[in-house]
């Protein structure tokens, strides 16, 4: 146990090989193959753009709104892909768990890495879009990896926690599917947070306390425009500590997830 075993040679090899396999299998048998990693979020973006920007005329006052939207949908896809794949990982890899002994978290982490790779490819597309759209490149672009990493930790925490329960109660997969649908509207992806702030400042602040909103707004702030409303510049003028609530939620969820997973993982092999 402990740190040395966690990152030993064998585990690293396993993590790498399982990630490779997951990635290969995801697009196995499709004509366009890996291209789907790019096409899916781009298509989702195209639909949302048509409906919300062209038809409903939302977001007119935000500079580079299409890129802003693409950024939001990509990060949202990253979050949902990470969590749903992570939650199902233990069940999907049940055959391995039953036959060889290795730290079970490897299965979850490798499942989420496919989402990470997809997101990184899409990040390149966002940057290209941003440049075409006339966003001025800046060194602050490199800072986006911080909120992205935070979003990843949050997804991992959720995947560990719900994935542990999912082994016994497969309902979790369906519950999470519905929950993410609802969450989608609780995060300012398709609508700008300014729209909420116009009717209720409190509501906007509550939305920004959601770690997903915080991360996405921060990414937009760093990548697209410093006019973006973020948790940092909007919440907690009086009580400074509120600004840290999303990060606190993320770390707490990660800690709880890791603890529950660690405890339950001893029985995964027999229960799965």
């Amino acid at each position, binding site marked *: 146990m402990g740190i040395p075993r966690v990152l030993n*040679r*064998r585990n690293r*090899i*396993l993590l*790498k*090989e*399982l990630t*490779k*396999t997951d990635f*290969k*299998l995801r697009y*196995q*048998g499709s004509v366009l193959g890996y291209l789907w990693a790019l096409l899916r979020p781009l298509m989702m973006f195209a639909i949302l753009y048509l409906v919300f920007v062209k038809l409903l005329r939302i977001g007119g006052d935000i500079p580079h709104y299409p890129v802003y939207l693409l950024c939001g949908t990509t990060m949202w896809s990253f979050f949902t892909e990470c969590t749903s794949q992570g939650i199902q990982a233990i069940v999907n890899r049940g*055959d*391995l*768990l*039953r*036959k*060889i*002994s290795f730290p079970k978290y490897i299965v979850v982490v490798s499942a989420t890495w496919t989402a990470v790779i997809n997101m990184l490819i899409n990040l390149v597309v966002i940057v290209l879009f941003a440049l075409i759209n006339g966003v001025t490149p800046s060194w602050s672009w490199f800072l986006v990896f911080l909120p992205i990493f935070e979003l990843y930790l949050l997804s991992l925490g959720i995947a560990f926690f719900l994935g542990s329960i999912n082994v*016994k*109660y*497969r*309902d*979790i997969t369906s519950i999470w599917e519905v929950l993410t649908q609802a969450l989608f509207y609780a995060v300012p992806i398709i609508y700008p947070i300014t729209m909420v702030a116009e009717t209720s400042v409190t509501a906007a602040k509550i939305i920004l306390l959601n770690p997903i909103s915080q991360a996405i707004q921060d990414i937009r702030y760093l990548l697209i425009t410093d006019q973006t409303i973020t948790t940092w510049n909007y919440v907690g003028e009086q009580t400074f500590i509120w600004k840290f609530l999303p990060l606190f939620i993320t770390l707490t969820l990660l800690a709880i997830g890791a603890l529950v997973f660690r405890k339950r993982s*001893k*029985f995964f*092999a*027999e229960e799965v």
Partner: protein
Amino acid sequence: MKRSIGTRQEIEDASSNIAIIAKNIHKSFRLPTEQAFGLKQAIFNRLRGIKGYKEQKVLRGIDLEIKKGEFVGIIGRNGSGKSTLLKILAGTYYPEKGEITINGTLVPFIELGVGFNPELTGRENVYLNGALLGFSNEEMDAMYDDIWDFAELKDFQDQKLKNYSSGMQVRLAFSIAIRARGDILLLDEVLAVGDAAFQEKCNNYFADLKDKKQTVILVTHSMENVRKFCNRAFLIENGKIIEEGDPKKVADAYTKLWQ
């Protein structure tokens, strides 16, 4: 609801001649008694005050001690608990009670071709399966050709595994498995693969392991192999060791179980 857990530890003690010590191993499984399983059923069961599962005792106090260099056979009828014991030794299952100490690295082959995926090519599967046995890409590169030569399947390496016959799959899996290096090998019924010619190769492999004084624990139904390869054997019945020692004597006791 709380389940007790025994201990399992892995040590590296070159000075000791003991490979595995298991003391008083107990294990039971919870078999669901209700058809449906899911959140709804769990809540119902809780409300009605029923457990929703039945305890099935599989191992009832197993004690073993295996020395380095021994070729040990574990035999028993179906459902006697021998595979469960092997899985507990391998670390995939936790014992409910008791302690296990493993001295050295242990490589389990509970089944051949773990992680084999029909949608991947033979080549990809070899690397994946190798990784599960602890080999890096570079190490697999080095032994890649030997694996295909041994399996006699060279022409199929870029075919998807789903196009292999089951015999071919097992041959490939076996060819990778025998590359595994560890202080202790756990083998579950991996002898019975392939046609007569391939069987011959497998037998040579086991004879070779025995000559090299490799520590091996073999779970099998073949009394012939027990007599041929093992230095010592254990007979398990109803989750207990009922006979141990000389392989010939233990193999005879096994045959007498149903006579």
